[in-house]
């Protein structure tokens, strides 16, 4: 497994690294326990809704730092609508690819950017917070990458069933017993869903 030269360049000399003083909005995703966390700071022009400045901080591996760097490059100077279209696949492509096992870094970086934009939009009455439903659970599961192939577990049909009743989220997944990423995926599902106040309990069945 090897990183592309572009990943190494962004890792050694990341663009837009650091904190913005008095940002219009900031967001943090991931957790030190998972081994990666990213914070994104935005300055947004209230009239044009253009991202005038963007910075990030990273606790994580080389690909975490490189994806943080590339998405700040991609988002800088764009309108919020344009920035929302940045996808984790697009970010990975802009780095000349990422190893499958590292795709989740790109998801985390893009997710943090989207969270910051959403915060800004809600704060300024440009959009509303969505009411919680099964749909949001599925969206959250789409952020979990199966490390073996670098694709999300919903697209890969690893997720067989999603239920949500009385605050209990039930997720049924299909992963063979000998799969080395089995525990990892189950843990990721729990970590992702336990963030939601609306979810009291996460039940993962295999």
């Amino acid at each position: 497994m090897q990183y592309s030269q572009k990943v190494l360049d962004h890792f050694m000399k990341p663009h837009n690294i650091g904190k913005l003083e008095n940002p219009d909005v900031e967001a943090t995703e991931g957790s030190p326990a998972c081994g990666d966390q990213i914070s994104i700071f935005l300055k947004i022009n209230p009239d044009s809704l253009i991202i005038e400045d963007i910075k990030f901080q990273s606790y994580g591996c080389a690909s975490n730092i490189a994806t943080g760097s590339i998405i700040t490059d991609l988002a800088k100077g764009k309108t919020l609508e344009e920035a929302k279209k940045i996808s984790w696949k697009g970010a990975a492509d802009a780095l000349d690819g990422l190893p499958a096992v590292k795709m989740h870094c790109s998801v985390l970086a893009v997710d943090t950017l989207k969270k910051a934009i959403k915060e800004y939009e809600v704060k300024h009455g440009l959009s509303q917070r969505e009411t919680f439903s099964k749909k949001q659970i599925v969206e959250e599961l789409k952020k979990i990458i199966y490390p073996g192939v670098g694709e999300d577990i919903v697209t890969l049909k690893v997720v067989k069933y999603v239920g949500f009743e009385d605050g209990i989220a039930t997720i049924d997944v299909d992963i063979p017993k000998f799969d080395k990423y089995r525990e990892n995926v189950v843990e990721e599902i729990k970590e992702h869903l336990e963030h939601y106040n609306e979810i009291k309990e996460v039940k993962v069945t295999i």
Partner: protein
Amino acid sequence: MKRIYFNNCLTSQPAPEVIETVTQNMNNNYYFPEDFIEMGTKTTKFLDDSKKIIADSIGAEIKELHLTSGGTSANNLAIKGFLTANSDKGTHIICSVIDYPDILTNAAFFEKSGFDVTYLPTDKDGFIDLNDLKNSLRNDTILFMTTFANHTVGTIQPIKKYREILDAADHKIAMFVDACEAYARIPFDVKDLGIDLLSISAHKIHGPQGIGALYQRKGIILGQVQHGVDRIDNLYTGGLSIPSIAGFAKAVELAFDNLETNISKIRKLSDNLLSKIESTIPYTLLNGPRGRNRVPHNINISFDFIEGEAIMMMMDMYGVSISTGSACASKGLKPNYVLMALGRDHEQSHSSMKFTLSRYNTLEEIDYTVKKLADVVKELRARSPLYKQ
């Protein structure tokens, strides 16, 4: 750029004398042992001479030594061989939660086949509580397995004390020791320690890759795990590389001719590395015991607020090879199980870096490494949202 190598626990650079020996033997001594013909009898004698050098280094007799294709094959021949041949005496085995993967995966394998396994916990430095061991012994316990020097944090297990506890039981309990990490790093004698089965490996002591040995004490019965033609060893059947065996013996000679000097040189280097890191870089945490209960070549240390794969890669770009316990750099994306078992949290495990030294390292290399490491840690901390100046 000359590479500075601190991954000797993974594998070590072959000594120049070993390379020369292997090459010579590939040219002149490629035959297998055989009776009555010159090439065969010459190889038989040569094999015995090599085995004597290796056997002597651990206090064993030639007849008690099997040559294998490395540490893992020795471990499998020992554990599987012992348990299959002795299951009529009992089906309970004991090891610890921080043992080498060869022990843990074999234990899990036998657990599935109906054996009972006790996985003993350890304290924060990696030692089993002697009372826990005593209390775990049962009438049907037949084997205790341990890793002489821990592969992650370098803890030296008190083998003699374990032997005394096993001997206090009213029946014989065998002891298997994986000594690949301890071999040629601390002096020991299998007879003195009461070890029944022990594995060693050449490539961790500047010998060739793909060759190792298993000590089987006289009277210990092993079942046949690997079947096939008896060319060199009746337990490890099939062929083994004669030039590699020659290289193994040469590596042993080089290590053991000056064992105390080599050990004290490496101890001095790693003491120096640790004290320089601790005095120049803030917010560090040594993993494993401090001082003489640790093998001389291992330093494992966590750097708060940052992640290990990033440290490893930056140091690699500066020409320094070190390894990390971070989940990001592991095959299953899991944090290091030894560090987690010692009570470290996820962050401390993700930020842990392992340096394993050899007699080929120098003080100049240590100076350069600590200087670069200080820069790398400072740079990554400046990027980290967890680090508040």
